[in-house]
């Protein structure tokens, strides 16, 4: 990116709140049901129906607000946001405008070990809309089908301050926000299921300039990667326009995942007038302080606290702490490993390394992982005991990941026990040195690197089962002795 410019990013995140029933009726919120099987005359907008606020939604919204360091309103109010769309049965969405439930919060992101605070302007409750289903794509389909199952799902819209200055910061914010919501237990935050959605407001300005540049809003950011790429694309587009003296317009754009570009949806002039006004069907919600404090008392350990614990108790680097606290399940896995194994950094390395790599490759969550924390801990002990080498451990791990078998069993089945017996190893070393007289000469004449080659030959001869530390020692002795 052109260093003369600075990108300014603010995010609007919609998180689906984890409740049994919808926000204004008693329909189920379960994901993936047959179309239009989780609806009632209420959420389908039939005549004479009235919304009744689900108290659990308020409770969870308060929980989320507290986790995000927000002030919880004493009175909040629902407004109608008016627009016509076939997936919006009442033709207005019940949302909150002037009196949202949460305001003035923040969260902290970690950038290369440096903390940065990102402000949260507000978080408000609202209902989700349904969705349209098409045959093929929207332009070629001869019809639109309406599925209202998602209608009335409770959402929390979390609006950040324009405090982010790069795509990396935006990603870090999203990751942190996600981990906080997950730790607080308020949302499932599954981007692929749409229970966590993100719009980005982006502008650029010459470095040092105070006022913000022309802002565009990017919709349809369905993954962390899309968020990063869209911000980078959009920032570049803005800078080029400014450099070329072109006029940017305030508009809403959409991210085209296939082409990896943003496309204009509508300009500010074309923007709809939502004609917000207080919903007369829903009296103002009074939130007693006692209630807030009661909820505060039930707040579980949040990522920041957990990170502190990891750094203080286990002396882990802050970077490790951030990764381990991405989800509560990942952290629980770590904690469970440590119940069976002493060295936190080793566990952390394996979790951030092999385990994460395998999960990503297989598009799996830690909860789907067949390796029990105790089994991973056992495998690490086997390395320490010298039963297997670090290198062997990787293939043991692979097998554990694939089959869920215990490490001892795998080692036994594959005859993978490490050879540490000196007399066995000396025999092999003698063979290797005899066959590689030239290399032995090189070593003796001062080429230290030659030792590595010889160790490699021994390992090869033992199909990797030789204990490398012992091989090293024996080789040196052997080469010295002659």
């Amino acid at each position: 990116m052109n260093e003369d410019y600075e990108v300014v990013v603010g995010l609007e995140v919609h998180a689906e709140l984890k409740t049994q029933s919808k926000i204004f009726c008693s329909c189920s919120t379960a994901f993936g049901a047959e179309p239009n099987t989780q609806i009632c005359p209420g959420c389908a907008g039939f005549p004479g129906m009235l919304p009744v606020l689900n108290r659990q939604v308020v409770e969870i919204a308060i929980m989320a607000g507290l986790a995000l360091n927000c002030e919880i309103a004493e009175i909040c109010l629902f407004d109608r946001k008016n627009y016509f769309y076939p997936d919006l049965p009442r033709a207005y969405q019940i949302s909150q405008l002037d009196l949202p439930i949460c305001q003035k919060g923040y969260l902290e992101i970690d950038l290369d070990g440096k903390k940065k605070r990102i402000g949260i302007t507000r978080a408000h409750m609202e209902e989700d809309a349904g969705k349209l289903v098409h045959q093929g794509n929207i332009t070629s389909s001869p019809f639109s089908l309406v599925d209202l199952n998602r209608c009335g799902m409770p959402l929390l819209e979390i609006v950040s301050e324009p405090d982010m200055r790069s795509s990396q910061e935006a990603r870090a914010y999203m990751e942190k926000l996600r981990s906080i919501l997950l730790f607080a237990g308020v949302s499932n935050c599954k981007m692929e299921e749409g229970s966590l959605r993100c719009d980005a407001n982006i502008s650029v300005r010459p470095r040092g300039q105070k006022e913000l540049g022309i802002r565009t809003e990017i919709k349809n950011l369905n993954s962390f990667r899309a968020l990063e790429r869209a911000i980078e694309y959009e920032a570049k587009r803005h800078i080029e326009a400014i450099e070329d003296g072109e006029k940017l317009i305030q508009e809403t754009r959409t991210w085209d995942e296939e082409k990896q570009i943003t496309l204009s949806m509508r300009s500010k002039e074309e923007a709809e007038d939502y004609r917000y006004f207080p919903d007369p069907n829903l009296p103002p919600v009074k939130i007693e302080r006692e209630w807030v404090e009661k909820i505060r008392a039930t707040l579980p350990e949040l990522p920041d606290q957990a990170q502190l614990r990891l750094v203080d108790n286990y002396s882990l680097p802050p970077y490790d702490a951030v990764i381990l606290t991405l989800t509560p399940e990942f952290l629980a896995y770590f904690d469970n490993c440590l119940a069976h194994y002493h060295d936190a950094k080793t566990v952390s390395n394996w979790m951030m390394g092999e385990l994460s790599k395998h999960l990503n490759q297989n598009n799996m969550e830690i909860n789907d992982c067949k390796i029990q924390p105790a089994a991973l801990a056992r495998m690490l002990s086997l390395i320490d005991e010298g039963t297997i080498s670090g290198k062997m451990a990787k293939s043991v791990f692979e097998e554990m990941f694939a089959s869920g078998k215990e490490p001892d069993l795998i080692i036994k089945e594959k005859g993978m026990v490490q050879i540490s017996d000196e007399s066995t190893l000396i025999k092999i070393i003698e063979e290797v040195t005899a066959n590689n007289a030239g290399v032995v000469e090189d070593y003796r004449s001062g080429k230290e690197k030659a030792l590595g080659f010889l160790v490699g030959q021994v390992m090869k001869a033992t199909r990797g089962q030789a204990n490398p530390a012992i091989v090293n020692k024996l080789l040196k002795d052997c080469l010295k002795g002659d």
Partner: protein
Amino acid sequence: MELYELGLRDLQDKLNREEVSIREIIESVLKRIHEVDDKVKAFITLDEENALKKAAGLSSKESRKGQIVGLPFALKDVFCTRGLRTTCASRMLENYVPIYDATAVSRLNAEQGILIGKLNMDEFAMGSSTELSAFFPTRNPWDLERVPGGSSGGCAAAVAAGEVPVALGSDTGGSIRQPASFCGVVGFKPSYGRVSRWGVIAYSSSMDQAGVIARKVEDCALIMNIIAGHDPLDATSANVEVSDYTSFLQPNIRGMKIAYPTECFQQGMDEAVKNLVLNALKKYEELGAIIEEVSLPHGEYALPAYYIIGPAEASANLACYDGVRFGLRDYEADNVLDMYCNSRSAGFGDEVKRRIMLGTHVLSSGYYKNYYLKAMKVRRLIKNDFDQVFKNFDLIVTPTTPTTAFKLGAELDDFLTLYGNDIFTVPVNMAGLPAISIPCGFSDGLPVGMQIIGQTFDEGRVLKAAYAFEQNTTYHNIKPSLGGEQR
């Protein structure tokens, strides 16, 4: 007297004394409807078959458990009825059959009342004459060339014509009281939140309130005992204790303090109407009440504010009629915008469109503050006016309307005059107060109504004052001629 001429309580007495059967009552009412409804045109939908079936089901004494066993009632077609089409007198809902009963309706059903049918109204309850029904106008039984008032005109006309002893109506700015006044019957609008709005098709959610039209005050009390009370399905329904309203049916009002606002006896008033209400106040004085003149200074702003708030809410409430899930739909349109526009253009009448446009306009950015927010401030001032008066008084009495029933078609093109008809009733809705209209005399053979307004949730005292007046006058005994000789 024929059975159809009796009120609920009289019918109940006859049933208890086993002088009549439920079947006879229902048949008498249905026969009356067949005789006169061609002239009155009060019913949109008659549910004859089900009514008779229910009557048959209640023939054994053991089956009778409710408070209004076997007694007939009808509903303004704004109340949703399961399995029975509910039109709101609109083309939009001409064939709409709900799968649910409004709470008020299920309560009446649970008490074993018998629904006779659904009554005409101004489309979506927007209007004061029932001429704005998409189907046909209803006529005033006292003069078939005149309107019955509205929007609950079908209720008032049916009750006045003896087609049904009692009907549920809805009142947003006078829609129960004004037609009751025009038709010489009793119209009771409870406090906002007293009767559940669940299942009542919305016009203006912050002012809509279901209520009763009957020939006698006691029947209002009886029905209120059933329909009043908290409903968890309506978040604005009041969780306030409900009294036994029949306990207020006693004629002694000695010492009751009644105020009458100067402003309601001045502007554009029909002299005869004014004098009849002043006479009624004298009657109250004779009965031992204390009568004083007061001022409601912000009343003049009520109408403009009402015609901002009502349409604003309506513009959103009526947006669900988009042709997607139910109601009229243009199947020919080849894109969704055309489908919306064509469906709504064909489905709504002019007045409904006018109010949707008005409401959309006053909520638009740039106008919201100067119209909607200002109207909400006026609303607060009007409420304050009432609160001031109620510091010293029990009740407020006004004429229900400035004139008697006008001729059909007279004000159709002049909607501003039509709006003016609600001048005494609208402030009551804006303040959420309970009020009743009862007959207090006749002018040129047309009934005149008096409005009695009470404090929030003080329905009992309103009913008491209304009952006392009724017991000491005979206006309610005079029956309309239906175009023939007056009796």
